[in-house]
């Protein structure tokens, strides 16, 4: 066959087609003999998850969580940033039903800003709460209060924590509920609570009343008034400290009003 006589279009098509065929065949063979089995659902679940990689589900990122859901039957309502929407999609995809965990928000249980809770020495060093805590036990006179060096704010993936006047504050509207800040606080002042709760005791000091009074003007002195008002155990005394039981709904303005040191607030 003389190449020159062949229709150039046909020749081109034929040649390229043949090359394609050879390549395709090679690929097909490779795919058959070198195949690695992988559950395709992992990828699909990962696609459903928001991809924030916040770690709030306690897995190392969304891909890891997706793997756990598919392979280890992990609970599917752990994704805080995804909320109801992601949960619905996961339910539909996996054919499961799960109750949405109520949306949670972080709260800093300390109200002692620089004006209210004085420092006991001048700290000079790394501006990080854990580092400050390790140098002579933290510079706040109160051994339980917020140090205000912003470890929680730096770790927050949503930028929801602000340090104002030496005190960390969570902006509820921005918080995605991942809980990263809880672990970041060396004084375990941050708690995840249901968003619907509005009455808080902003103090975690386990010191006795007189000691608290010296260290902070808005600390809980353990007077027990609030515990008497919340008669169903919504606020209970844990030693010298009043603690809100967030499992029980509670909304009584009286507790806020009657607190002598104003450490109970509505927020």
């Amino acid at each position: 066959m003389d190449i020159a006589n062949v229709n150039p279009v046909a020749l081109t098509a034929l040649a390229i087609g043949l090359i394609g065929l050879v390549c395709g065949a090679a690929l097909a063979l490779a795919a058959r003999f070198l195949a690695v089995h992988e559950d395709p659902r992992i990828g699909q679940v990962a696609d459903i998850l928001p991809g924030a990689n916040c770690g709030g589900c306690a897995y190392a990122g969304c891909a890891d969580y997706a793997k756990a859901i598919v392979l280890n039957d992990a609970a599917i309502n752990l994704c805080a940033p995804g909320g109801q929407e992601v949960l619905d999609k996961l339910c539909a995809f996996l054919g499961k039903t799960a109750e949405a965990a109520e949306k949670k928000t972080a709260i800093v249980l300390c109200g002692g800003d620089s004006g209210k809770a004085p420092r006991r020495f001048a700290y000079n060093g790394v501006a990080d709460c854990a580092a400050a805590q390790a140098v002579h036990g933290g510079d706040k006179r109160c051994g339980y209060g917020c140090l205000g060096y912003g470890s929680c704010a730096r770790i927050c993936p949503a930028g929801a924590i602000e340090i104002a006047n030496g005190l960390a504050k969570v902006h509820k509207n921005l918080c995605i509920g991942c809980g990263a800040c809880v672990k970041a606080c060396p004084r375990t002042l941050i708690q995840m609570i249901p968003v619907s709760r509005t009455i808080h005791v902003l103090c975690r000091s386990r010191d006795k009343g007189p000691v608290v009074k010296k260290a902070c003007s808005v600390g809980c002195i353990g007077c027990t008034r609030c515990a008497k008002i919340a008669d169903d155990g919504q606020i209970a005394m844990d030693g010298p400290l009043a603690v809100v039981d967030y499992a029980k709904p509670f909304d009584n303005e009286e507790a806020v009003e009657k607190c002598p040191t104003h450490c109970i607030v509505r927020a």
Partner: protein
Amino acid sequence: MTASDSHTTLYTVSSSPHAHSGASVPCIMFDVLVALTPALLAAVYFFGFDAVRLVAVCVASCVGAEALCRKAMGRPVKAALADLSAVVTGLLLAFNLPPSLPSWMAVLGSVFAIGIAKQAFGGLGYNPFNPALAGRAFLLISFTGRMTAWHAARLPERWSFGGLTMDALTSATPLGMVKDAIKAGDPLPVAMDGATTLRFLLGDMGGCLGEVSALALLLGGAYLLARRCISWHVPVCYLGTVALFSGIHWAANPAAAMPPHFHLLTGGLMLGAWFMATDMVTTPVTNKGLVVFGIGCGVLTMTIRIVAGGAYPEGVSFAILLMNAVVPLINRATRPRLFGQRRKA
């Protein structure tokens, strides 16, 4: 409790140690400025008003650029200026410019050096490349003509080597002349007799402002060594490698190559080896790393200088910039053996 209550000013509490050597970044930068003074005086002597003009323009625009960048970034301005690093950058950049360069180009180079090569990374300590060299390379590539147009050092008629008189405005650096001659296949235009060597040592030749006087630069380098601002590793390895490399090249082909002392005394080698390749931020941290760095600079410099086809007669700034780029890898490769970790057999 009583003790702290009665105490009105709070004690300072920090992590140990509670003693300090007193060394500080501004101190180091000030020492560098002092060390650059002899070269500055030499530049003024050889290039007159142009030296004063370019140094003033570069320093002023570097400091200005630093202040503007810090302000635009919303970061403290005063603290950044107080460390004197912008002044050092400005002076070094000026030292790397030919005396005839228009002032506006010098401003552009300064802004590039500070704005792009330094502050874009976050300021002193974060820049991977030497800002002054980045500024010079930027100008060299953008305005190759103006960056390689040399006024004769003092008077055009003084520019003659071995009976060959050069046009004052084109390739009047010894390195450039030699490279042109080699490219054209002409005989070497510079004879390194005693008198020429002395002139080169003093700085009586064409070149950038601060690079001509090897003697002044050596003085400054000695000061830095004495003040322990730099260690001997980089300059010695750099200059040693250049000497060795050019020595071998010269011994192999004395007719078409220049002897080692020519390579040591000409171009920006002295300035580079003592002041640019010793910039702490952009060089390795270990002594072993510094040795590797110095040798690398030497090899690259000589490669660029010797290979005939190269576009540039001088390779110091590119060599140092290239080595700056591999510093992280050098640091990784030259980590010291940990005390208590047995040597691998």
